[in-house]
């Protein structure tokens, strides 16, 4: 993924139903790769195809860290549905990610 994707992803929010998840990482570290893998696994299991993950590499475009107030990496930001939620870490505890993103409460359509 490239940072440019981050700018084009705003359109789907009109649907109200799609999930937009942003994963902020700093370079291709073991931790960021693990975080992405963990996230994909969780989403595939709970959201079917109705999600979009964007990986933003702050090492390449550090200014984007200001937009979503990123300090820790990796940070997962749930842009949609509202309200915005943030989870930091490599998402190794899948159960807690599910609770944290409230994936269990959102019916899958």
């Amino acid at each position, binding site marked *: 993924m490239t940072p440019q994707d981050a700018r084009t992803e705003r359109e789907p929010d009109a649907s109200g139903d799609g999930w937009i998840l942003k994963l*902020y990482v*700093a370079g291709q570290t073991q*931790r960021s790769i*693990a*975080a992405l893998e*963990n996230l994909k696994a969780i989403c595939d299991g709970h959201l079917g195809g109705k999600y979009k993950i964007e990986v933003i590499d*702050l*090492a390449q475009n*550090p*200014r984007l*860290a*200001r937009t979503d*107030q*990123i*300090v*820790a*990496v*990796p*940070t997962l930001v749930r842009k949609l549905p509202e309200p*915005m*939620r*943030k*989870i*930091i*870490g*490599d*998402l*190794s*505890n899948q159960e*807690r*990610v599910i609770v*944290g993103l409230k994936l269990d409460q959102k019916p899958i359509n």
Partner: protein
Amino acid sequence: MATTIRSPDTAALRLEKCPSGIDGLDQITNGGLPRGRPTLVAGGPGCGKTILGIEFVVRGILRYGEPGVIIALEERAEDLIRNVRSLGYDLDELIESGKLVVDYVQVDPFEIEENGEYDLEGLFLRLGDAIDTVGAKRVSLDTLEVLFSSFKNLGVVRAELRRLFQWLKDREVTSIVTAERGEGALTRNGLEEYVSDCVILLEHRVRQQILTRMLRVVKYRGSGHATNEFPFYIDTKGIHVLPITSAGLAHKVSSERIGTGIPRLDAMLQGGPHRGSSILITGSAGTGKTTLLAHMAHASCARGERALYFSFEESPQQIVRNMDSVGLSIGPCIEKDLLRIVSARPTMHGLETHLAITHQKVEEFAPDLVLFDPISNLTDVSIDSDAKSMLVRLIDFLKDRGTTVVLADLASRGTEKTDIGISSLIDTWILLRDIESSGERNRGLYVLKARGTAHSNQIREFLITSRGVQLRDVYTGPEGVLTGSARASRESEERVEETTRQQSIERMRRDLAAKRLAVDAQIEALKAQFTAEQNDLTLRIDQETSRLREIASDRKSMLTRRGGEGPSNEPGGNGLP
């Protein structure tokens, strides 16, 4: 930033400094903060940490042309920009001109959930980006403490902070990192553990509802620094630290005398107090301290010198008016800017702030004479020992500059003790006291102490007339010291006595002359009588002599007639029957 290559030992000896641009701080730190290294600024809430950090960066841009970055973790960028506008800094303008980046780093612990391993690389990247954007040489981080409450994994926070400070050093930016003051420790979260080059502590104390701010350099590795607590204040121009040091009695000494404006007082002091000395004037209420001070200020202005008058009781206008009424016109001195009167209620600031303002005004105006009226009011805002230490520093500071200092002090009636107990610091001590007798209250003046001067030991009566202060000799006699009308009446009595005496002397002189005349006349008379008698006797002697001659001639002729013998028988004539 680009460090020149030096041999390791000289580099260690000569730590390069980065002038903070903060008034006074660079003097305390002998040149500024360690260049290319972080400095920790610790202090409680509201101590001025944030402003110190911002001013460091802003002054860097404005004075030294060093671009900067402000990372705010507590305050929103907009709030921060608005807040510092009151200090006269337009951050927006600096941002637009590409010399400053303000980044608000918001970390809301309620919004964030932690899951697995993480680090704070995001912060590094943001900081790095900000530094690169403007080519920053100065960074302010306010305050990293927030990170400790934002993240649950404190091990990560600590490790990352350690890395951050090392990273800042590697980037060779001079930075100020602020931290909250902790209980029993310098900072709440022990940030001093990571920043070991320079630590500055800010404190504020509230005593009797008055706030005083203090700054202390706790540590400065590889550099000498002043270790005392220094007062500072924040005004519309930013932070002012007062590099007040107790100058170790090494100030230059002048033997020049300066007039007090009262000729007789100068005479009592062998020509007046020394230039650059300290003069204390104590007296109870209404003994004329202010008038005396105004005289000295006026005399200074008359010499074309500058005087700075701190009044803690009266407004400038009030002093001018009151002095006009005793014939002392100080208004023109003010107009010529030879005299400045600074009026402030003592309770307006803490003691240290007063000291600070005094310093600032003195530096600004560079006066030859500084007057305080009265210092006793400063004790209102402090405990005595504080006021004393302040005055010691103040007098030292002024003496060091060669400035003459005059302190008025309200003393309890008749005491020879200053309330603050600073008499040992004083070179010349003039005591004004009221002398009460025969239903009158009069003023007396005497010199209690005058270092290096054979001063008069006399009490003088101190008169405030419509033509200024006048000193009169007091009457001392068997009835003690008399002043006022008692003195006047005693003086008039003495005048009468004197006249009487003089009159009697005249009379006796006249008698003597008359006697001499009489005697002379007698002598003349006797002489005349003698002359008369002498003539008379001479005449008789002549008559008798001629008579005797006649008798002898008669006898001879008779003998001849009788046919007697010749003249050879004449001696035998006696044998005749």
